[in-house]
């Protein structure tokens, strides 16, 4: 394979790295211009709509942050959507039927998420199952459990207090009213950007994705770290489940369908490599915003919602193609 000169390699890396930011800018500009032309009025660039975009992105961004760790380590977690449903339903039932209260409910969702992640991790490390197969199986198991414990019906009546805490807006200086869920997502993104780029846990996540065997030969307890990565993804999914429960004010066992698709799309669009070893939390957040904009744009222009999943799926395929191309351009030997 021909190696490009280093300057050209760096250029390709830079485009691959920040290309998604360019996509975001172009989409915002295009929707701002097109919205008044097509709908006769500015529907896009209104604070109400932008808050909606940010809210949609927030929940996906939180899951996708965990997914970024999993994919960077060379794995995949297809069970996050089902995990959202199970965590939400369980938290709703606990709050409705016991006196654990809203904060307790939040931690129940997180605990369910963490346990689901630990179960995935055990299947992958102890039984040596491929992550794709293990989490495909648990996707069905978790979704099934959500349906079983809720009897297939949405769970209501878990108290308004939960919504008041986790689905309100807070006034920030200079910016104005911001949904707490967006603040949650931003704080999580900053913390886990730091974890991925500045700590041993993050470095080993990258190392395991680069070469699991090399990492093991370096004396690193690979399985322990892989467990940690899947538990982290589960815990963050649990947070997302609690926030979604608050936003939609019901715990529905059918919630979270296709959330794995959005989370994987956000990560790979943001430059996280499906072949492992490379991940970018900043890219994932921008990716989540782009996905939210795609859905928002399609809504604004009255495109039937069936097209949304089609488009997001196509975007994943495109992003993976670009990643392959970049690797061919920059890899030596």
């Amino acid at each position, binding site marked *: 394979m021909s190696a490009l000169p280093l300057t050209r390699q760096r250029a390709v890396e830079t485009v691959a790295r920040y290309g998604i930011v360019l996509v975001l800018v172009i989409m915002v500009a295009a929707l701002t211009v097109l919205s008044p032309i097509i709908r006769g009025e500015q529907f896009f660039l209104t604070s109400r709509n932008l808050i909606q975009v940010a809210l949609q992105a927030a929940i996906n961004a939180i899951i996708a942050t965990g997914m970024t760790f999993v994919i960077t380590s060379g794995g995949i977690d297809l069970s996050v959507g089902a995990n959202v449903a199970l965590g939400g339903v369980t938290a709703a039932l606990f709050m409705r039927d016991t006196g654990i209260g809203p904060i307790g409910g939040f931690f129940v969702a997180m605990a369910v998420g963490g346990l689901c992640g630990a179960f995935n991790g055990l299947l992958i490390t102890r039984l040596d199952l491929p992550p794709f197969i293990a989490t495909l199986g648990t996707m069905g198991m978790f979704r099934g459990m959500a349906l079983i414990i809720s009897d297939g019906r949405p769970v209501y009546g878990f108290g308004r207090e939960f919504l008041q805490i986790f689905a309100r807006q807070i006034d920030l200086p200079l910016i104005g009213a911001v949904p707490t869920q967006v603040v949650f997502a931003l704080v999580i993104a900053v913390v886990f950007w730091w974890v991925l780029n*500045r700590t041993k846990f993050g470095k080993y996540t990258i190392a395991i994705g680069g070469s699991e065997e090399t990492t093991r030969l370096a004396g690193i307890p690979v399985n322990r770290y892989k467990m940690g990565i899947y538990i982290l993804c589960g815990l963050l999914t649990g947070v997302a489940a609690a926030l979604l429960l608050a936003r939609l004010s019901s715990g529905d066992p059918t919630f979270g369908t296709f959330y794995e698709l959005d989370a994987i799309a956000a990560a790979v669009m943001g430059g996280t490599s499906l072949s492992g070893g490379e991940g970018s939390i900043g890219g994932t957040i921008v990716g989540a915003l782009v996905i939210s904009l795609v859905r928002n744009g399609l809504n604004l222009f009255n495109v039937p919602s069936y097209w949304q999943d089609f488009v997001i799926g196509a975007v994943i395929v495109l992003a993976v193609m670009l990643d392959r191309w970049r690797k061919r351009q920059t890899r030596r030997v």
Partner: protein
Amino acid sequence: MADSGDLTSLLLRVEAITKNFGAVQALKGITFDVERGEVVALVGDNGAGKSTLVKIISGVYQPTSGKIILNGREVHFPNPAAAHAAGVETVYQHLALIEELDVADNVYLGRETTKYGVIGRMMGVLDRRQMRRATAAALESLHIKIPAPTMPVRMMSGGQRQAVAIGRAMTWGRQLLILDEPTAALGVEETEQVLAMIERLRDEAGMTFLVISHNMQDVYRIADKIVVLRQGRHAATLRKQETTMEEIVAYITGAK
């Protein structure tokens, strides 16, 4: 660097090592010595048991029976980390470095220094500045030239990678360096650089090497002693001064 605390020159003794994988006997009693400051080549045809033996010495596999004696004391390496702790480092042919990490991150893989005291250590906060500085200094002292400690390994040539991998092993391996096919993936010029580096590290730093190689020219050039394995058995131990390339090949193929 080479430890001169022990007065005897014997560094490693592999004694009657056997290894069974189920019903297959991969090693049928291997014995040889490695003396301090020498380069020992481990040669043999495919399936002779070289890789298995190296994996036992480096803690990846456990022997079925037999002993490993390092510095006069019997040692047991239940995992690679235990071998590292005893000063035995191995550079694997395809598994030496993580391509996605930079040079310093690779040199310090599994041995990170942290900052912010006890809390930083518990959280594993990397002190990258310190690791980069130390990596640059360590490679410099070994006369290993790389563009920068912050360069991702992915962007480096095969020779540069091998130099970094050996440099990494040198930085941590106080006793013995095991090199698995160090020149197999390299071009002519890069092979020469790596061989010259091994010779220099032996002559100047007194480092001890156990080198697996298929390349008889390389073996004959750098080795002081050649250990030949054949079908899991020890076929011969030859001093370079007392043998010829033809004789080595004859032992490998079983003609002798």
